[in-house]
Structures are given as C-alpha cells and as structure tokens.
C-alpha cells in the first residue's frame, strides 16, 4: 500500500521531472516558475473537472501551462529579464492568478465529482486491479509523455533546443534563432509541469494553493538522482532515468516515513539532496586540492 502510494506520487511528479529534463538539462535554464506553473495546472484542472469535464480538464491544464511557459520565455527573450528572475516573476504572479482561478478561494474539494481516476476506478471495480487506477493512469501519462518527448527531441526543432542549451553560438551560426528555441522549449516544459499538477489534483481529489510549493526542488532532486545513474549513453536512457529518479526519491521518502520521520521533513530532504548532488563534484575537487597542499607542506 505504501509502496503503491510511493509509485503513484513518483510517477505523477516524474512528469515534472521530465519537464525539468527539458528546461534544466537540455535548455540549461533553471525555470523557477515551476512551482507556480504546477499549481496553475492543478487549479485550472480542478476548476474544469468541477464543471463536469474530467478529460477537458487535462487539456485545459496543459494549455494554461503552455501559456505560462510562453510568458516566462517572452520575459527572457523579448523583455530583457534574466532567466532566473523571469521565473520568479511568473511564480509570484501565479499566486494571485491561481486564487482568482479557484474563485477567490485557496482550496477546492473534488471529493464528489468524476475525475479520470474515478472513471477508471469504476471500470476496474471487482477486478484484481481495483486499487491500481491511479497507478495505471499515471503510468500511461508518463509513457506517453516520455515517448512524445523523445520523438520530439529527435526532430530538427528538438535538436535545435538541445543545442541551444549546449552552444547558442553554434545555433545562431546554423541560422536558428536561439530565442525561438527557448520559447518553444519553455512552452513545452511548462505544459508538462501543469499536466503533472492537474493529475495530482485529480488523483488526490483536492487542490490547495500550496500544492506546488517546493515541487521544483523535489523534482530537481529526482532529476539529479537519475543523472547520477546516467552513463550519458543516450537521451532516451536519460529520460527513463529521470522517471526512475522520481520513483527512487519517493520510495526513499516513503521508507523514511515508515521509520517515523515526520512528513514535514520532505522539503528539507529534497533540498539537501539537490545541494549534495550539485556541490559534490566541487567539494571533491576542493578536498583533493587541500590534500595536495597538506602533503606539500608536510
């Protein structure tokens, strides 16, 4: 039961990890609007689902995310705002937007309505898969997004997006506008992030304004766990490892909960994981240097 919950949450958040794979690993942009965009997806999704359209809810969340990504990208590419700052601006603004979307409320309850998850649950009633509706749907979305993302990254536009984070000079030399590839890349990644938020909202049948808070750090930790396992062999392998990273992160976290770690420690743990994975290579170098210094003085 606990493992199942870990898998469910791991799979749903792995969509955001895939979004970060595109923005952070490929485009080389740390998109700080992620928390806000995740919440936008959850809020828009919830409002549309509450109006009786569980499927439309998915597409609405996706569209809202794409729009948010467009705004973040335009701030960077057309208005001269630094990439970190434009993420922060969109993130802050999204708080008010989200409250407005939820009709001046900071909480929406979806207990009694039909979601894509309850629909499958009804379908699977009295079968051995009865309690696996969330797992199955999340898995389906993760496979679909993974597949489409990998196909996309093989197209010329996908390659151009990968090259933009890699060497923007070469991109311009190839007659490609790097601000165009940045805009498309952030629109797609924000769309996927919002989709992830929408699925979480539908799965847990409620949204509050804090649903996305800290998701960037949590998913970055997952992404970096995946990266540790990566052999740099191919993009396909790296996307699968990104999903795996999310599942590993949630499993460790769930195990820690079993060992009586309080639930509120989640964000501290994810922060520490991000810190360690990012600074470890640097710290290692400094350690080796100080060792050399000492041996010379001895």
């Amino acid at each position: 039961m606990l493992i199942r919950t870990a898998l469910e949450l791991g799979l749903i958040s792995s969509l955001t990890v895939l979004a970060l794979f595109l923005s952070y690993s490929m485009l080389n942009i740390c998109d700080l609007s992620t928390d806000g965009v995740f919440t936008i997806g959850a809020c828009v999704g919830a409002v549309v689902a509450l109006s009786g359209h569980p499927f439309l809810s998915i597409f609405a969340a996706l569209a809202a995310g794409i729009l948010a990504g467009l705004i973040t990208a335009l701030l960077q590419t057309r208005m001269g705002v630094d990439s970190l700052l434009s993420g922060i601006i969109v993130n802050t603004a999204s708080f008010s937007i989200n409250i407005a979307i939820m009709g001046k409320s900071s909480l929406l309850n979806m207990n009694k309505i039909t979601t894509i998850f309850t629909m499958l649950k009804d379908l699977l009633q009295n079968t051995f898969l009865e309690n696996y509706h969330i797992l199955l749907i999340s898995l389906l979305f993760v496979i679909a997004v993974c597949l489409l993302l990998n196909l996309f990254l093989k197209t010329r536009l996908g390659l151009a997006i990968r090259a933009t984070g890699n060497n923007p000079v070469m991109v311009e030399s190839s007659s490609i506008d790097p601000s165009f590839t940045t805009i498309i890349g952030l629109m797609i990644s924000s769309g996927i992030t919002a989709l992830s938020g929408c699925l979480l909202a539908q799965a847990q049948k409620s949204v509050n304004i804090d649903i996305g808070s800290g998701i960037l750090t949590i998913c970055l930790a997952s992404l970096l766990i995946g990266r540790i396992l990566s052999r740099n062999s191919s993009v396909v392998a790296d996307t699968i490892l990104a999903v795996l990273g999310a599942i590993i992160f949630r499993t460790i976290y769930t195990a820690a909960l079993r060992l009586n770690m309080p639930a509120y420690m989640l964000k501290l743990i994810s922060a520490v994981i991000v810190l360690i994975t990012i600074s470890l290579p640097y710290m290692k170098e400094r350690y080796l240097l100080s060792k050399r210094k000492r041996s010379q003085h001895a």
Partner: protein
Amino acid sequence: MLDLFHISKTYDPGTINEKVLYSDFNFHVDQGDYITIVGANGSGKTTLFNLISGRLLPDEGTVLLDGRDVTFESEHIRAHEIGRLFQDPSMGTAPGLTVYENLVLAAKTGGWLSMPNSHDKEYLKQKLMDLDIGLEERMHQRVGTLSGGQRQALALVMATIHPPKLLLLDEHTAALDPQSAEKVTELTDQIIKENNITCLMITHDLDQALHTGNRTIMLNEGEIVYDVSGKEREKLEVNDLIRIFKEKTRKYLDDEVLLNV
C-alpha cells in the same frame, strides 16, 4: 559583394574605458575574393568579423551584403549567407550532441518537426567521408569526445554544407596542433575553391597571409594601414610585411607573430 560604409564602433562610450575602435571605416570586398587579414592583438580584427556577421551592431554606418542593406539584420538571419569559424574549435559545434546531430542542424534537412531520413543520412555521411579523416566512423559519438582538429573539421563542414556567400575564418587553425592545422587549412582551401566562396581570413601566420588568397590587408587600431594584391603582393615576402608593419605602426609585432614567422 560586401561593403562597409562609414562604420563607427566605440566600446564603453562615456566611461573611462571608452575605446574608439572604428571611426568612419570603409571596406570593399569583391565577389570571389580571398582576403587575409593581419594585425596585432586589439587591432580590431575580430570586431570587424563581429560587425560583418551581425554579432555587433555598429554605432554608425552601413553593412551591405550583395547590395542588400543588412546593418540591422540579426546574426541568425545573416548566417544563411555568412559562415564563420572561430579560433576556439568548441564554438562552432554543440559538444553534447553527436556528430550526426550537429550536421543535421547545420544541413537544415526538412522542416522543424521532420526527422532526417536515410537519404539525408547517406548525404551527411558522404560529407564526412569527403574530409577523409575518419569522422564518418564517429557519427554517433558526442562531439565533446572529439579532438580540437576533428571538431574544427566538423565545424568547417557545418559552416559550408550550404556554401555561404561569404566565409569568415577567425584564426581557425591557431588553436590546433601543427598537423591538424595543416589538414584543416588544406580542407578549407579545397572547399573554398570547389564552391567559389568569397572568404576573409584572420591569421597570425604571415607566411600563410601572403600565400593564401588574392589580397592581404593589415589592420591597426581600426584602420586598414596596408592593402595589397596582385603583382605587388606576389613579390612580397614575410620580412617585407614585418618591415611594412613597423613602418605603418611604429610598433613591433607581438611575440605571437614572431613565433609564427
């Protein structure tokens, strides 16, 4: 085919670091020219390329390419007609992508959402085989794993896969070991000849400056202090060029140049 009219460019205007690099600079390049450019560090050679390629916008003046005013055209648009190679081999390629993926981007095969087909693949492989340095066997390796010479050779193919009207070579062999430098120079000359590309080459190698191309210009503090072509150039030797440089600038060439002589 290329004209620069009354170009002015000042760095950090209005500060104590203000440096007037170009003022009322004029430069004409004929179709089919292969011009070598020499000059000390800081004489404005790379800035000249940045002004031509669109990386820098001049404060005043006009840039005409084939009679078309491109002064305000951004770099990626001009890149359709202007190819460029840098001294640093990593500038011209994306290290995280494979050799093949780099070529696909440069070759502009099909639309944005298209994937290269087997025909494109054969074509790109052939381009690598033409180089005759075994790159075709590394098609699916990341460019970051290649040597500087291999990267520069790849960058050369990428810059000329659709032969540009104008090719800018910014000391593109200076960072390579002598053997790779020779190979890349040979490949460059071959590609330029085959496609009849107009070319500007910055070099610190005065021997190369005199024996490649059809015209040599010497830049000093944003001015062309010496411009030679035809018969006069044929008679010129490296020592003459050094003497002329001293006369024109009353400066000694920096060590970098002397070492290359």
